[in-house]
């Protein structure tokens, strides 16, 4: 499914490439341009990438437990933590293989179809993007493994992790907007004038709780060198500003909190599942 959407988004990007005004970093546009009614590859991955992680991890532990294989596994002369670490690392390896293959393959097809060559910096940006995507999907893998450790039934853990994914991907922005509007109403003109800055900042801050938003913000900055700020920009900050491109280092520094935050979330999720698994009593039913 992911591969299919990837190809579809590439088709959309190539058809929409003619409308790209900026001829610099054209190769990156292959990943970020959306065609008619087809979202870009980047937003596809942000939305559907978690599916890979969830599919790989939602029944990692509880299906073994239900099938009775976990007892036998633990009976083997291996350390108990090797089981949970192995499950996570195996899943991550599969994810990395899928993501890199798809991302690089997409670029190769793009070169073939358009004749646009990537520059050195573009290659680095794409590699950073793919690596970060692996971390993002691995976070969802860790979350689903955690659920599979906690929940007895595979169906429960699957539903729980999918519910979390849907919440962050779709409802978090609604919730953030509702909370921000409640705290800083901007209903009429007067309030809008007073509160809009705070409203927007709170909205942004709440959205950033969502790993989906963190990831989207980070990769869109990395894949678009013209993005200069991820925060609210006031007019006085723009006085005297001239448009230009940021170097990869500067782009990375801009979204460094997002990158480290997401990596930290992944580690925390895995740590949670690890502790949960290690403290569980495993006995044959």
């Amino acid at each position, binding site marked *: 499914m992911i591969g299919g959407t990837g190809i579809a988004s590439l088709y959309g990007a190539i058809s929409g490439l003619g409308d790209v005004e900026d001829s610099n970093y054209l190769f990156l546009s292959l990943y970020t341009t959306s065609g008619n009614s087809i979202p870009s590859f980047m937003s596809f991955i942000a939305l559907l990438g978690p599916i890979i992680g969830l599919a790989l991890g939602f029944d990692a532990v509880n299906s073994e437990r239900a099938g009775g294989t976990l007892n036998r596994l633990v009976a083997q002369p291996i350390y108990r933590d090797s089981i949970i670490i192995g499950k996570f690392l195996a899943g991550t390896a599969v994810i990395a293989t899928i993501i890199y293959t798809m991302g690089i393959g997409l670029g190769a097809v793009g070169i073939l179809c358009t004749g646009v060559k990537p520059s050195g910096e573009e290659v680095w940006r794409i590699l950073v993007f793919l690596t970060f995507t692996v971390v993002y999907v691995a976070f969802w893998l860790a979350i689903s493994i955690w659920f599979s450790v906690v929940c007895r039934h595979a169906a429960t853990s699957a539903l729980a992790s999918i519910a979390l994914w849907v919440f962050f991907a779709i409802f978090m922005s609604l919730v953030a907007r509702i909370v921000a509007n409640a705290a800083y109403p901007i209903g009429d003109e007067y309030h809008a004038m007073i509160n809009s800055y705070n409203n927007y900042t709170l909205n942004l801050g709440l959205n950033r709780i969502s790993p989906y938003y963190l990831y989207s913000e980070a990769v869109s900055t990395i894949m678009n060198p013209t993005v200069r700020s991820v925060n609210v920009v006031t007019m006085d900050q723009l006085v*005297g500003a*001239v448009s230009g491109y940021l170097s990869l280092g500067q782009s990375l520094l801009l979204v460094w909190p997002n990158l480290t935050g997401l990596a930290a979330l992944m580690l925390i999720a895995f740590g949670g599942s690890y502790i949960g698994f290690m403290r569980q009593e495993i006995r044959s039913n």
Partner: protein
Amino acid sequence: MRRKKLWSKRTGVAAAVLMTAAMTLGSVTAGAAGTSEAGKNTEPVKEEVGTELSGNDTDSGDSGIDMSTAYPGVTVKAGETVSFPLDFLSLDGKGYDVALSAVSLPENWSGYFRGDNQEITKIHVKPGTTADTADAGDDSDAQFSLSVPEGIEEGTYEVELEADAGEGKTDTLELEVTVSQEESGQSDFTSEYPQQQGMAGTSFSFETTIVNNRSTNQTYSLSADAPAGWQVTFTPSGESANVASLSVDAGGSQGLTVGVVPPEKVEKGEYTISCAAVSANDTLAQDLTVEITGSYALTLSTPDGCLSFDAYENKEASVTLSITNTGNVDLTNLNLTSSAPTDWEVTFSESTIDTLEAGATKEVTAYVTPCENAVTGDYVTTITAGNSETSASADFRVSVKTSTTWGIAAIGVIVVLVVILGVIFKKYGRR
């Protein structure tokens, strides 16, 4: 007198025909003068010169010789020397040794006879021919050189010359000299606009004319006396080549363009270029004046010409400015100002330059501090140096960079997390 002259001319024609090959300019001139009478005298020319002339001899009294000059009346300036080429003619076909003398000269005037570049008192007139001396102008065998003294009144003066061949055969020649104060025959070197003004770096071009009022062609060699570093060229009108000398026909004129290029770093002021055209007879001079006006110009850049630099939020970045006075006037009270984004601070090591001499360069350091919430990326900051007369500005591209401090802090967070994970592994694992 008139009769004698007439005769001399007529015989001149006859002599010229008889002498055939050795025809000279003087004879031709004489012949031309007598052309009007040529029709009447066709027959006598063919006859023996001596017989025809001897028949008329009685008319000229007892003269056996004739002395004449082509232009017995001339106009001169006081103080000048004029010379008369003399023609001698034997009227009866005999040869004579003729003694020459100036019978009457006005007071203070002096004159002498000259032949072969020395003073002479006698001349030999060959039989049957003329002692024709008008054949080569200045090189004539006999000339009467007359010096007109300075400071005499205008008017007409008479000089009488006598040729005495002995045996009572004499001839007199009256010369009429009109002394005039007015210059005639003086050549001229003029310019319509001898004074021009312009800024430094301008090329000036003067249209001048050389007029040759002399009776002969003149070759003028051209020279100019200009201040050091100035270039002066002479170009004839309608030509493109620069010349060092040029020839002007008698009575003609020649347009001449004098091109003057001041040195690049010329100072304000008035400069005189003395141009001279010197020929064998004339020394013509013309002073051309160029006034260089003051120009105010300033450039602002950096020593290496790089107009961009990096800066970090809320941190001072310094950039060295080089301010150059490219005009030719000293500039005073130059102020350095800046136009920077909101809340940015720009200070200078020296915000006012008291005096910047013409051509001098001054280096000033500017300290730029971006505001705390500057967005990563490029900003424009304009720095201007100027006073009431001129100003120069430079746009600097300031690349604001994110400080890596927080990036390192974030890595620290990851490290702490990994350590915690390791502790968890230790606590719960391997049991």
